């Protein structure tokens, strides 16, 4: 419960910072919205935008009104087309999840076994090779991985479409083919991170006394590896996976850009060009909420997996 409270406080801080950022930034946000100084906006236009954003009221009043609306899930409407920001986000969130969830699954499903593999072959050729590959994996920016995947799999081999989105319900096969490259690009760095963490944590646990005891009492190597070493080694891995999922929501911004994937971050990028402030605010708020929520869930899971640290 304490953790949940803390998370809520953090979210309140984020929301507050987002709210005040519009007022702290130099210049009149209405002018920004109307296209900057160059646009020569008339006083009436400015007044209209002010009224629209509620900027004509005193700051504390605006703040309270805004917070009240946000807690109800009302994020305002787009300045461009009057559409509800919350509804747009709700429409697009599943598409971002369609990238993040499989990418997480892939990172864990490949990262953990590879990490164990490298750890168990410590000092032989496979280990430094795998470790170096992993380091290279998370040294490559997600957009470089994405571009290279497009270059190889779409342009050279012509196996998969380079960009675009097909709805899962309309064309499941096409959906999967469009999904493959973005998911691979998104999963590359987390995969490398999970692998490295698994490896080092496995090695750490394998050197513990209880592992020696387990071996000494004659347990099969398989039992020692699975039940004694891996189970303990996975603890730090769970927390790193949580962190990775959180940052994947943000990393998806580049992936969605490259692959023209219509998720929440693509919405953000469109809004940036037009300075559609409510939309930008909404996406950053949602992104931060997901980030905080994922970290909270990770913390709680950590307590579940590791009875030594239970949160009250």
């Amino acid at each position, binding site marked *: 419960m304490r953790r949940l409270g803390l998370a809520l406080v953090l979210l309140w801080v984020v929301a507050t910072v987002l709210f005040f950022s519009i007022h702290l930034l130099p210049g009149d946000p209405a002018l920004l919205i109307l296209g900057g100084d160059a646009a020569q906006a008339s006083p009436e236009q400015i007044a209209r935008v002010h009224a629209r954003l509620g900027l004509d009221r005193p700051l504390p009043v605006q703040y309270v009104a805004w917070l009240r609306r946000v807690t109800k899930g009302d994020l305002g409407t787009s300045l461009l087309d009057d559409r509800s920001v919350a509804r747009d986000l709700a429409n697009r969130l599943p598409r971002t999840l369609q990238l993040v969830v499989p990418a997480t699954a892939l990172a864990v499903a490949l990262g953990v076994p590879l990490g164990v593999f490298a750890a168990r072959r410590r*000092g032989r050729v496979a280990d430094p090779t795998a470790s170096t590959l992993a380091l290279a994996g998370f040294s490559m920016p997600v*957009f470089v991985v994405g571009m290279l995947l497009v270059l190889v799999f779409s342009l050279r081999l012509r196996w998969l479409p380079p960009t675009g989105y097909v709805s899962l319900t309309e064309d499941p096969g096409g959906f999967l083919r469009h999904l493959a490259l973005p998911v691979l690009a998104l999963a590359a760095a987390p995969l490398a991170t999970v692998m490295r963490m698994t490896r080092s944590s496995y090695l750490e646990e394998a050197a513990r006394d209880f592992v020696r005891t387990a071996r000494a009492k004659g347990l099969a190597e398989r039992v020692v590896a699975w039940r004694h070493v891996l189970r303990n080694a996975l603890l730090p891995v769970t927390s790193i996976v949580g962190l990775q999922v959180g940052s994947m929501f943000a990393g998806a911004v580049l992936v969605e850009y490259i692959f023209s994937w219509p998720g929440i971050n693509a919405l953000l990028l469109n809004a*940036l060009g037009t300075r559609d402030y409510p939309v930008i605010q909404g996406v950053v708020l949602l992104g931060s909420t997901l980030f905080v929520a994922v970290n909270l869930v990770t913390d709680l899971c950590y307590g579940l997996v590791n009875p030594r640290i239970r949160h009250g």
Partner: protein
Amino acid sequence: MARMVGGDAPPDLGDARQGGSGTVGQPRPRPVWRRSRQVLVAGPVVGLLLAAAALAPVLARADPNALNPRAKAQPPTLAHLLGTDEFGRDLLSRLLHGSRITLVVGLSSVAVAAGLGTLLGSAAAYARGPVETAIMRAMDGLLCFPPILLGIFVVTFLGPSLRNLILVIGVLYLPRFTRVVHASTLAIRELEYVESARALGASAVRVVGGTILPNIVAPILVQASLATGHAILIESGLSFLGLGPPPPTPSWGRMVEQSGRFMQLSALPLLWPSAAISFTVLAFNLLGDGLRDLLDPRLRRGT
């Protein structure tokens, strides 16, 4: 392994790697240059990168922004060692000049983060009480913004420029340094030599700056190297989205984005900057990893 340095070289350890499961207690002394292969490899690479960036105007024979319609998207030739891009600009020149942006942003933002973080972290750990709570909670607050989102948000509203990029990335990495310095200072502030400095009547500033700081340089350095790698990733990501220093300034992220549109025509202009970013980040990551093994035995994992 051909040459041993000094008289303290250990008896032949074969290829046994450091911190192996058999090592108990004190690690055996080894010549410094052999202790970390990563530093051995990455150190000179980082040095070369810095030199290349510093000497870019001398090394690059062609103007990085000169358009040449007659030499569009050429493969490598003697005149253009790495070829030209879709506007006929010399890729080698652009890469070299781009390295300056990357390294300046990477290193300065980390310097901002490390400097401020050291100040805040040591202040928090030394003052304790409400000051500590305020500083550390503020850092928690900063941490709940996903880095690249916050970067996009701030740069859009402050306008894309080198200075804003450095400030944003610096602030993004501030919590890390504050936490590292805070934790390290807490760990040693009650040790006897710190106490003796205090007993001798040294002021708080003097104790922190003169006694504590020199003893926690190692973790700060390790963080700095790793954070530089991350900072470069963020910088190139923002440049990729067009939020870096405005054109025509060459930056690696933007080069990837622009040449990506023409990759059907020619892949080389895409591959060079991609490789440049990846290798630079890799070098800083390796350096950080190696420095961690080398400088901070407490953090030593089975690497």
